[in-house]
């Protein structure tokens, strides 16, 4: 059989349509984008000059950019922990139910189906109107905070909305992994006298580490590219206090001095940072994965 000789051929053939689209619309623009990072193009002019690595040299002195990198790192760190813990918790809770699994799965997955921009505007209404209504009329004074204007609270607001949107997706991955854990292993542990807590950490968790790898990878990756939630909620403000790298790049490219070339250089740097971090992460979590 030809298939046995070239097991990868049919695999490749099946992937080909998606691969072509991916190369054409994602890989190719990304690669040519790096070329623009060596120019002073403003996104409008028909001609531009190659200026070598000047853009990259400038990035090193760009305090606003590094502040946004710092803010994004903080966001990623909190998001990775918060979303994964909650998603795993929810997945375990729902999986342990006998009835209405589908209902809860649907409810918690629902936010994922709404565009984050729309979700952001919905939450904006909650943060700027509903919470103040509760604070003013029901006396819930602890809600009377500047949810958009004070960077400390707007960070919390951003995390709440982003986690609300992402948890459903991660939960589904964790649920699939949990379903793959053989029941006899758990039974055996139970017979050996392990309680639920022990059986989860000693049996279940080691067997779903591959899902943890995927989910952490996904949250890391998505976190570094965060744009829509922040854009819809605070617009990066007040000032630049909640500006993520993606928003910083967007503003460089489309607002103010409209510097496409420089903005592309910034996104290249972001790409390299994300690449390094995810590679380290895959190495670390990958080595801990257990196979049955």
């Amino acid at each position, binding site marked *: 059989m030809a298939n046995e000789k070239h097991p990868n051929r049919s695999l490749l053939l099946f992937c080909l349509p998606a691969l072509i689209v991916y190369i054409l619309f994602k890989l190719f623009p990304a690669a040519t984008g790096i070329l623009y990072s060596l120019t002073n193009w*403003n*996104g*409008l*002019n*028909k001609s531009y000059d190659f200026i070598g690595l000047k853009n990259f040299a400038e990035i090193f002195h760009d305090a606003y950019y590094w502040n946004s990198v710092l803010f994004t790192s903080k966001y990623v760190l909190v998001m990775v922990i918060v979303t994964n813990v909650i998603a795993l918790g929810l997945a375990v809770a729902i999986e342990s139910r006998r009835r209405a699994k589908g209902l809860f799965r649907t409810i918690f997955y629902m936010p994922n189906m709404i565009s984050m921009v729309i979700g952001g505007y919905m939450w904006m209404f909650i*943060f*700027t109107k509903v919470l*103040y209504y509760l604070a003013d009329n029901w006396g819930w004074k602890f809600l009377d905070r*500047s*949810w*958009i*204007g*004070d*960077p400390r609270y707007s960070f919390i607001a951003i995390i709440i909305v982003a986690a609300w949107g992402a948890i459903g997706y991660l939960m589904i991955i964790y649920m699939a992994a949990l379903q793959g854990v053989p029941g006899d292993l758990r039974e055996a542990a139970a017979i050996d006298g392990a309680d639920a807590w022990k059986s989860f950490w000693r049996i279940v968790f080691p067997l779903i580490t591959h899902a943890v790898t995927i989910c952490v990878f996904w949250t890391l990756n998505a976190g570094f590219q965060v744009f829509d939630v922040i854009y819809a909620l605070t*617009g990066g*403000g*007040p*000032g*630049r*206090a909640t500006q993520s790298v993606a928003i910083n790049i*967007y*503003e460089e*490219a*489309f*607002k*103010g*001095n*409209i*510097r496409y070339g420089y903005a592309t250089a910034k996104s290249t740097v972001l790409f390299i940072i994300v690449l390094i971090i995810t590679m380290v992460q895959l190495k670390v979590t990958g080595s801990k994965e257990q196979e049955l």
Partner: protein
Amino acid sequence: MKKILALLLSACMLLALAGCGNTQAGAPAAGTNDNAGGGSTPVENTGASLQEPRVAELNIMMSFPQYMDQWETYCKQFEAKMLAEENIKVTVNLEMPSSDQYESILQARLTGDDAPDLYTLHCNNIGTYNKAGNLYDLTGQPLGDVIYENVKDTVSVDGHLMAVPIESQAWGVLYNKAIFEECGLQAPDTLSDLRAICAALEERGYTPFMLAFQEQWVPQLMTGLTLGDIVSGKLTDWLERMYADEGSYDEVREIFDVIDLIMQHGTDRAMEEGSEAGAADFALGKAAMFVQGTWAANTIMTTNHDMQLGVFALPINEDPGCTRVNLSTSTTLAVYPESRELELALKFANYVLDENDSSSLFQACSFNPLATVHDYEAFSWVEDASAYVAAGRAYQDLVLPSSVTDEQGRLLQEYYVGSVTVDQIVERLDKAFQNANALS
């Protein structure tokens, strides 16, 4: 059950494929059609059958979705007019992306060889777009003869008319005339007048200023007005020196006297208030004054039909000579020079200031009259502002680099929440201006 599902799914896929197929097959056909009709002499093609109208398409992109209905009607009128007068069957494709994404979409379209034939543009960007070769020179077009001279200056580069002005306004601070009357107050001429007004309003239990700082462009209006005041009344060469890297914001530090006053006597939770919500709350009497342009009048009047809206010039010091209104053009309409339907595009540009139809359009959108063809009665707030202009108490809107304008908005947000001081603002704005100078 499964079979039915599979059948349904495959039917869906087939439909989707057929849909793709159609557009692909249709695209080149439409393209050739465009090419055939798009030449400047379409006579050869249509010559065989004169009765048969030439088919053409005109793509227009505009940045004010709030006036979608009015412009759609106007485009329909244009289509009818072209069919009747020129025997051209035009289809106008009108696109209205939301205003905060408009510029990025426009830039992507311009650079992606997919430029609309006509597009709206902020007046301050005319210079940049002109340099990039994206504006058709409208000098000599009939529309040039009807635009008011002071408005024409705002849309011209070196005496060449580069765009059709659409939104032009004299603006300052909006105020609620009913509240002012009730408290026996009058529009201020000096900063101490304004202080007295704030005190009087607060005594009666009113909040003087509406603050809606969530979007950066709203607080930025305060710098727009105060810098204009100070430059027109006192430091006339400040802007020139700024462009030559010889000036500093330190010289105009005075503007923070009035900015502080506004922030101290404003509504709470300003960062949680968007511009539209602010306009609505102002209309409902939550505050007596609002530093906002007359473009917000539409929202205000829709929220409260009985609102008595007035405009006064923002005083910045004790010199009434500095208290002036801002005369500016914001939205303009430009023609793309490499448009395939250039002639038609020019016809549309002229039609915007058509002597018969333009008035009703401008009135429906509550735009201010800006050409001799506009013979409708202006609103009370427009008259208030026009009175300042007539008395010579107006200045041409300052054209700052847009990165500096953005930075002013950001810094005022930060100033409001208390994370920067005036000294830091001065330093950062000077730097932003120098950066912009270095790049242009």
